[in-house]
């Protein structure tokens, strides 16, 4: 292909590239990344599919308004430096979002090229450039000019990491307090290695460290120190402690051995490395694993169970395929790996053996009724449709809520009725100088929305400090 300007017609003639990936049968037995990433030639060709639309609909589709056409143009011109610079300014964790954003309902959904055919593979290109930058560009240096201000960040998930990076670039002294022994939040303990290798998270954190961000692990705000201790010691604070409280089904038998919350199941495997043969952290395995839920967490759990040796790994979801909130790519990958989808079923009771281990679950079939508050059609039980499914492992992946550990110790912080922190449009909470964002404000959302909050908060914190 020539490097000269292409006509729109020539651009239209290029077909969407495909992502090279591990063979499904093979990858269902290992924890290595499923997608290999694009090579340079495919990336450049893919970027040339972009029509550089004046309307820039793709930009509107991205929660952080990444300058997608400029980015794609730079990739098309093999100017990866410029492409990386655009990412750096607009998107703090591009290697992550390129892998885990639900592109099909964001940037790629509204891409003009998707109207007739396939949208430009914006996510894959983002990942390509981010990985290129990690390999070819040095870590950023701390800013020349430091301010006299200090900011504390609570939580090292995507919202906290983004806020930390932005604030450090502005010259403020930033300290991140993290409850766990390692960074990344859900990126580390939730999303599995085969979707987001932990070296990616390590690299993002290393960048922040070279910007001068300090990390303090094992600090549980609300327990080890309080928010008011933080506000005494620091000039401002950003709270990004996520929504990590697991919900259970509230059916009999839920405390049998072999029944896990997805948080516990994934934390054991990802944070504690239970999938490695030499890990001291155990994880239960069994021939049939059944996972309740239809989101990314459910897909991650069921694919993990398959990789841990379950012959039958089943998604049991109470609505239909169309309502599944998981990313398309994950559902597709799960199907390829032989995951069974049992749709329109809801658990009624879990049965165990004399040994206290789960043996089976009684399910009820459902049908779709009227739309509910979420706009999705509500599942309604079908009378007399109960049946029993054998199961050795059950994982409950039906969502999480706000963890009250921090907020309980800080009654001044205004919460909504679900326990999420209330903020104004600048992410400021009811306590002046204390900002919040990500899942603790939104309820379970996405990585990119959490990052968007972190970025907006960083801007507002900078303003706040300068006018203080």
């Amino acid at each position: 292909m020539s490097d000269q300007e292409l006509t729109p017609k020539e651009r239209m003639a290029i077909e969407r590239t495909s992502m090279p990936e591990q063979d499904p049968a093979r990858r269902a037995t290992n924890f290595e990344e499923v997608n290999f990433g694009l090579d340079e030639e495919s990336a450049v060709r893919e970027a040339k599919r972009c029509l550089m639309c004046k309307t820039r609909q793709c930009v509107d589709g991205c929660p952080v308004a990444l300058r997608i056409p400029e980015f794609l143009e730079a990739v098309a011109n093999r100017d990866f430096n410029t492409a990386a610079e655009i990412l750096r300014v607009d998107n703090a964790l591009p290697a992550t979002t390129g892998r885990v954003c639900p592109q099909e309902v964001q940037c790629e959904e509204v891409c003009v090229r998707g109207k007739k055919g396939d949208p430009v593979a914006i996510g894959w290109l983002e990942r390509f450039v981010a990985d290129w930058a990690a390999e070819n560009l040095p870590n950023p240096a701390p800013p020349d000019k430091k301010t006299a201000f200090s900011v504390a960040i609570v939580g090292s998930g995507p919202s906290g990491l983004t806020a930390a990076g932005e604030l450090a670039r502005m010259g403020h002294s930033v300290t991140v307090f993290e409850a766990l022994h390692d960074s990344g939040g859900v990126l580390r303990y939730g999303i599995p290695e085969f979707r987001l290798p932990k070296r990616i998270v390590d690299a993002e954190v290393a960048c922040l460290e070279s910007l001068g961000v300090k990390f303090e692990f094992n600090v549980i705000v609300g327990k080890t120190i309080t928010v008011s201790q933080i506000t005494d010691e620091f000039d401002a604070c950003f709270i990004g402690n996520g929504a990590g409280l697991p919900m259970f089904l509230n059916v009999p038998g839920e405390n049998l051995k072999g029944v896990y919350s997805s948080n516990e199941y994934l934390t054991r495997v990802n944070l504690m490395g239970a999938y490695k043969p030499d890990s001291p952290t155990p994880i239960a395995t069994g021939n049939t694993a059944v996972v309740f839920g239809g989101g990314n967490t459910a897909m991650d759990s069921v694919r993990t169970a398959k990789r841990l040796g379950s012959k039958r790994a089943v998604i049991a979801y109470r609505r239909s395929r169309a309502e599944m909130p998981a990313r398309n790519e994950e559902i597709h990958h799960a199907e390829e790996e032989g995951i069974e989808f049992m749709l329109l079923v809801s658990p009624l009771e879990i049965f165990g053996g004399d040994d206290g281990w789960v043996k089976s679950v009684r399910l009820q079939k459902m049908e779709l009724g009227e739309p509910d508050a979420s706009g999705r059609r509500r599942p309604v039980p079908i009378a007399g449709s109960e049946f029993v499914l054998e199961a050795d492992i059950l994982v409950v992946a039906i969502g999480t809520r706000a963890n009250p550990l921090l907020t309980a110790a800080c009654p001044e912080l205004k919460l909504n009725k679900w326990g999420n922190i209330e903020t104004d449009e600048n992410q400021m909470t009811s306590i002046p100088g204390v900002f919040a964002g990500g899942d603790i404000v939104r309820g379970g959302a996405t990585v990119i929305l959490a990052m968007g909050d972190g970025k907006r908060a960083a801007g507002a914190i900078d303003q706040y400090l300068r006018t203080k």
Partner: protein
Amino acid sequence: MYEVISNELIAPGIHRIEVRAPRIAAARLPGQFVIVRRGEGDERIPLTIADADTQAGTITLIIQAIGEGTEKLAAIEPGGGIRDVAGPLGMPTGIEKVGKVVCVGGGVGTAVLFPLAKALADAGNHVTAIIGARSEEFAMLRDELAEFCDEVIVTTEDGSLGIKGFVTAALGEIIEDPARRPEAIYAVGPVPMMAAIAEQTRPSGIHTIVSLNPIMVDGTGMCGGCRVTVGGEIKFACVDGPEFDGHLVDFRELATRQQAYCDDQHCRLADATAQTGPEDDA
């Protein structure tokens, strides 16, 4: 790194170690615990904060070496370090002056009991401690407890010290004597001991508080692995506890859940080779 200041053997296999952790020392209250990780790649292990010195910025842990994780911790020499110490976790004990209390500790549970007994004595209660052990050498902390308790009773299974038998016998004598009958009982030890005491005090309705030790991962309410049934409701021991009303706890469930990873019972694949994957076909 959290520096280990001292490490002392106080009973066979039971170590008392002092760790520098100033923030935790300042924040902790009796009844709370920490989660420690010896080094990179090691398990997270919950341990009660047995004591703290705010001035020196240290906390005291009493560790019974019963498995890989606790053995590694117990082996740290003074001057060595623990990679992670997170806390204080859990709800502090509600310490009030109620009058007479009995604190019953079984095995390493005595370590968990120690800060409670101390706080209860400081609050002006009449504290009787009953410590149960296999034999004299395992009856730990009896001199330390005697410093602030009004009475310390030791029971040993082999009769080598104090009363021969179990703690329930000694406790039975106290609750049946109207002059000694306590307003509250704190019991910490192996699940069967706590369950037995809860049954023993149920008829009289004496407030009986137990400290539960289910298997934990994060200790912050994030995983739900520590869930226990109390009064028919699911509670997370790490954030709602670890202390609960003993008369409401489902001890059978707790006992079976604690065994989940014993003797490889959690490996439930029919074909054990399935986990290793297919031959390398590269």
